[in-house]
């Protein structure tokens, strides 16, 4: 706790002095450049995501603990902050769990149906949107596609 100041220094002064704050900033800048650097390394995109998120969490902790004085703060403030992130995380967890495990066809984007007959048929589905479970899609759309032309 760098309390370099004179007479007016509060007895309960918390937090870093300017020097250590500057150091903290320097570390943050380095981390910014490192996250930039890591993003230029060729790797699978999910690794990039994980690396970027890890560095962001480290930066977040530095800002929260030292710039925002949570290191010295009352316990309840820490609980508040951690709780809000916990809820953020759980919201994300459940939504992503849903997105990840849904029935394939209700997860993929299908362009808005231009006309009923084409959409109702499996042939109306665009490529790359996940296949219709076995035995349901093959060749069944042809006749009805024809029938759709009035």
């Amino acid at each position, binding site marked *: 706790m760098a309390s370099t100041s004179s007479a007016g220094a*509060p007895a309960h002064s918390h937090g870093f002095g300017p020097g250590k704050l500057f150091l903290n900033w320097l570390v943050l800048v380095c981390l910014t450049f490192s996250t930039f650097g890591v993003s230029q390394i060729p790797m699978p995109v999910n690794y990039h995501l994980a690396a970027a998120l890890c560095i962001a969490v480290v930066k977040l902790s530095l800002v929260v603990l030292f*710039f925002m004085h949570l290191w010295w*703060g009352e316990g309840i403030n820490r609980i508040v902050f951690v709780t809000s992130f916990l809820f953020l995380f759980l919201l994300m967890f459940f939504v992503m769990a849903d997105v990840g495990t849904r029935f394939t066809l209700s997860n993929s984007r299908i362009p808005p149906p231009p006309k009923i007959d084409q959409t109702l048929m499996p042939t109306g589905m665009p490529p790359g949107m996940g296949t219709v479970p076995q035995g349901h899609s093959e060749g069944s759309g042809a006749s009805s596609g024809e029938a759709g032309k009035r």
Partner: protein
Amino acid sequence: MQSSAARKMTAEGWLEPPPVPHHYESEENHKHALRLGMWLFLGTEVLLFAGIFVGYFVFRTYFPEAFEQAGRHLSLFWGTANTLVLLTSSLTVATAHYYAEHGKNRNAFWLLTASITMGGMFLCIKGIEYHDKFVELALPGKFFHFNEITAPGGPIFYVVYFFATGLHALHVIVGMSLLTWVAVRCWRKEFSPQYYAPVENAGLYWHLVDLVWIFLYPLLYLV
């Protein structure tokens, strides 16, 4: 807010702190209340941005190619510059808090002015980036007419992009107003070891703005 005119200047060179509101038993208790109130408010801010981040991850799962392509079209230079600007402004705010707490109102004033300027810079850079997007017609939803993103999902990326950065820019503006208000009070030498809660709370808000950007930067620009 108590008007500073009614308060006397103390020997140490700052104004007497305003009286503690009558329903608090002690000054320390009041400070605790203010700080807890601010942290709770920051908690609500985190959850306000939660929706956007959830949206980001959901649509990223649906449209990975579009998000990759669109991310590459954002200006890495301006994005990184903005990150550094915001980090630095966070440093000056944190240091201003330190000086205000030690009664050095003038130092705090100049540091806050620097932070506000950097906030302005951040908005200018954001403005340049927005301008580029408007020129390219890389816009959200039905306004999207940007040919270079070939994968489906381009319009959605720009909804996420504009909503996240727009909401963040709104917070920057609010933060700058708060800092300006605090800077004026620094100029009037209102803060002292007994009374510095406004600097602290305005600072906390500004750091939150920084925190949000710490996540937006890699998610939007880098991956």
